[in-house]
């Protein structure tokens, strides 16, 4: 399996995928640093107080994180989507699978290699962006590492489903399905929140089902919760009841992080989908 992991990492470096990602990250971080400095200068000149500036910066940071989560999810999906199918189509796997290599080792090796790339990139890019923000605005979110970890978790979820689809579908089809699933899951999260706020239990349970089918929404809320200043979470808790739910329905606010049981569910979901990918690929004829 380690041969497959190594080949996957090597491919990302040789095909300049990593360099493209890192180059873009530097450009985005520099642009946001410039944007933040302009914003703060202007706010201070107009007499906006520090607490208000902190909330503003955290909201922009959450918006940036949303954009980053989208880029990450798409990157994970498009790395995973052709990971098996393209090598079946090109015949690369004919010689590889004629070796004493289990199909499960191939799937796990590809997944692990891509997961290392995605998590590594998320960590470097996410922490770099937070570091630049701290330097320019002096705002450091309360939980920077969990924020990045939840982002990486979303990417892993998308990567895993794309590897499963790649065992059966061509890369383009698998990638397109992942994009749609990402959008649907995000919408389900918003719908679920609104349904809870408006006390519509049928809609809420339907939306919750969709949220668990592809567990992205809870991780996104974890990112938001980790990035916003404690005052926002406190606000939600103070409002309480239906009002608190209304605050939570907004995808850019969160009054609490994901529960440990939810995180355990996500880990089991990833393991189960990987198991399904192995089962599917074992039955595929090359």
């Amino acid at each position, binding site marked *: 399996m380690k041969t497959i992991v190594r*080949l996957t990492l090597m491919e990302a470096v040789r095909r300049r995928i990593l360099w493209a990602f890192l180059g873009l990250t530097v450009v985005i971080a520099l642009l946001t640093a410039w944007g933040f400095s302009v914003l703060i200068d202007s706010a201070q000149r107009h007499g906006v107080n520090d607490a208000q500036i902190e909330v503003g910066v955290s909201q922009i940071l959450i918006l940036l994180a949303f954009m980053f989560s989208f880029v990450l999810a798409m990157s994970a999906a498009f790395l995973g989507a052709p990971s098996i199918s393209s090598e079946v189509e090109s*015949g690369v796997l*004919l010689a590889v699978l004629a*070796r004493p290599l289990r199909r499960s080792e191939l799937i796990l090796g590809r997944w692990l290699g891509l997961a290392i790339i995605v998590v590594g990139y998320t960590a470097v890019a996410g922490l770099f962006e937070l570091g630049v923000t701290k330097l320019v605005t002096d705002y450091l979110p309360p939980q920077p590492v969990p924020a990045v970890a939840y982002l990486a978790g979303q990417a892993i979820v998308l990567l895993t489903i794309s590897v499963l689809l790649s065992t059966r579908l061509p890369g383009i089809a698998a990638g397109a399905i992942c994009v749609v699933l990402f959008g649907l899951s995000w919408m389900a999260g918003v719908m679920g929140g609104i349904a809870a706020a408006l006390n519509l239990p049928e809609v809420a349970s339907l939306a919750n089902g969709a949220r668990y089918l592809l567990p992205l929404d809870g991780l996104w809320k974890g990112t938001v919760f980790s990035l916003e200043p404690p005052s926002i979470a406190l606000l939600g808790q103070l409002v309480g009841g239906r009002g608190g739910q209304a605050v939570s329905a907004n995808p850019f606010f969160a009054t609490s992080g994901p529960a440990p049981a939810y995180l355990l569910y996500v880990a089991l979901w990833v393991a189960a989908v990987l198991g399904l990918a192995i089962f599917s690929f074992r039955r595929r*004829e*090359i």
Partner: protein
Amino acid sequence: MTDATAIETRELAKRYKETIALAGLTMTVPRGEVFGFLGPNGAGKTTAVKLLLGLARPTGGQGVVLGAPLGDLASRRRIGYLPELFRYQSWLRAREVLAAHCELAGVPSDRWAGQISSVLELVGLTDRAGDRVGSFSKGMQQRLGIAVALLGDPEVVFLDEPTSALDPVGRADVRALIHHLRERAVTVFLNSHLLGEVERVCDRVAIVDRGRVIVEGRIDELLGSRSVRIRVTEFDGKAEASLGRFGPLTIEGDWLTIRPVEAERVPDIVATIVAGGGRVHAVEPGRATLEDRFLALLQIEEALEAAKP
């Protein structure tokens, strides 16, 4: 199945929904022989190889390769494979492709360098070992594929159309390589529709059509008897009778044909004609080619198929 058998199949079959790719393959490939697996396009040759390697699952019958059931993981260490349609990772260097396959084949790491140099030398790619595979021509990729198949000192090598992308020099190289493998007692399973190639390198052949072996045997047995055609002038009928002892004689104008005839008796035949006063203008030893036999067998198969109610 004995230790002397490398590959054995019994009614091995593969069906894809309504399509029968292999109708029931029964054959035996002895160890150390070069076995040609011939057939027209779509006859089921590549399907058979994939079944033997465990890349596809049979829908019927059974098979054994190197004493293990088809697809057995451990026995794959002793098998080399050149696929028909394949590509290696274009972003890897040739040496890196070979190193990856050494690792996958379970070759101990202290033997990689020696193995890689040796196979690169055999296929004539030593000078290009450091180049990216993406810059290789189709012929060079084919050579690299053969090198990959030879890593790990396999006991059986499956070559699926190994000369299809090669120029005449490359084809001659592959023939030399197969002879080299035979000398090392490696069993070679050669899938090909290039009959001239097969005739020159194989000990045994099986001809497959519509997923079935229609004939299997040693090349010599399949090609049948030899003949000789001689153009003679100034040779009288009495002298012609003296040639009867060499074999059945037919005469067409100046041409005499004796079939069957033992090849080593041809000089005696010429000497007899000259002693009888004949003037010899041309001597053409002949034999049915594999292509003649192949086409004849396929025609018979088609006729039998057409005659079915």
